């Protein structure tokens, strides 16, 4: 199935990534499964890009324009030989969710605890909001 993913940072009007179609292998029934599926897709896409590092897909004019906004135009390929460990990436993502480093909204409703049930169907809009640590210490 394919969902639509937004990535947003609080305090910024524009979505960092807006409405990207995102394929999932299985239909998630809980937040935990949704995170696992999303990480799985990210890791798979990353590995596919790494496998084609000698012959990457050409960038479209739109991609170049988008990337020029953040100041770096690249193929998104890590030229190192180390591939990501998917299990560790999933564990870290669960931990980050529990720590509140990012929040997930399905449509306009916030997803709850990791084991809360979610209702996701073809074309559902899922928004990931990244939060930043407050670093000011009391001294």
């Amino acid at each position, binding site marked *: 199935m394919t969902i639509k993913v937004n990535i947003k940072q609080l305090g910024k009007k524009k979505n960092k990534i807006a409405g990207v179609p995102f394929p999932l292998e299985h239909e998630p029934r809980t937040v935990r499964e949704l995170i696992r599926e999303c990480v799985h897709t990210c890791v798979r896409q990353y590995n596919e890009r790494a496998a084609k590092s000698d012959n990457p897909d050409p960038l479209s004019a739109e991609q170049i324009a988008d990337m020029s906004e953040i100041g770096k135009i690249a193929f998104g390929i890590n030229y190192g030989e180390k591939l990501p460990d998917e299990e560790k990436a999933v564990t870290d993502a669960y*931990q980050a969710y529990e720590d509140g480093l990012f929040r997930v909204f399905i449509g306009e409703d916030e997803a709850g605890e990791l084991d809360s049930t979610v209702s996701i169907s073809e074309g559902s809009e899922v928004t990931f909001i990244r939060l*930043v*640590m*407050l670093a*000011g*210490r*009391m*001294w």
Partner: protein
Amino acid sequence: MKQLSAEEKARLKKLGEKYLEKRGKFRQDCYKKLPDDVKELIGDHCNYYYEFRVGGALCKKMIAYLSESEKNMPSEFIGKHAPELFNGYINPKHKKHFLYTIDHVHERIYATGWQRRSLRSRDPMIVANCVINVIRDFKEWDSVPDDICDYLEDNLTEEELGYKLRDTSLPYCFDDLAAAEIDFGNERLISLLTDCINGENDIPLDRLMFRAIVKSHDRGLHELLGRLLCAARLQEGLRQSICETMDEGTPEAFLYLLGVINENNFIRFSSVKRAVGTWLGFAEEETVKLERISDKSIALISDCLTDPAKREEYLNSEDSMKIHIGLWSLGFYESRDLVEKIREISKHGSRHQLLTASYTVGLLNVLSGKRVLIQ
């Protein structure tokens, strides 16, 4: 603190300036009335990290008195040989807090500042130097009028309130005063601190409150601080403040909070890594060194502080981190044991153990460190 208009604040701050002047003059007058040997004792204050001083006649006498027996308490010595200190130079209403503090310096770390290390000692010279520094803290920083709870709740005269407004932080000796009051069982203070941490009153949270809690022996407040650490979530600064303060109190408070860190795997947060770096002596400008700190370091610290057999095993290993933490854990309770162990390694240890021990010498203050190195 109640909301004040800018004009009101400015008016009170002016009163505070005058109060500061008046207080300074009063303390100076009190100082002039002190006997010469007490003046000499006060003049001996030092920076704990860099050096210790044997000082004048009264300081030497205190060191000799403390050396006679571990049962000899600094408070008895000061009460007998320098009672004039409470002529106003140290607020007489805070005498019992001061005496309680100097009798407990051995269970708190003796170094201060960002280069401090988590070392404690009953060494008479170190205790004497700590006593002198507590005198200085109570003289210079004690702007708390007689009752600490009234101070927190702003039940103050206008000039005292103006003086409080001058600074955004609590006075330096607040933690010692509050720790003593907590141990004396001051329920009002315990309730004020509990409500403050739970966000149920208007008193601003301050790092010195954490220090007061870890210096006290109140398990309930230690647990409250542990819960605050768990609740910090995205507040990395709050986590940093708690973790970088938790080594400044009693070993029991430290071990309890270390357990909380261990249980929740808080070492994944960089603020906690930085705090561990501070305790262990890795906190230098090269923050890259902090990458060496992991959950393994927390497990080693916990093992070494609670299991002497494990500590001995680590000290006999060839693993630098194990040796360093093993040595550090000796100094955590008594820095003389750390020095003794380094001496032993210098005589009988392997080359690698000796090299690690020479790094660990850096935990000690410069003069003691040099002495060990020379030997």
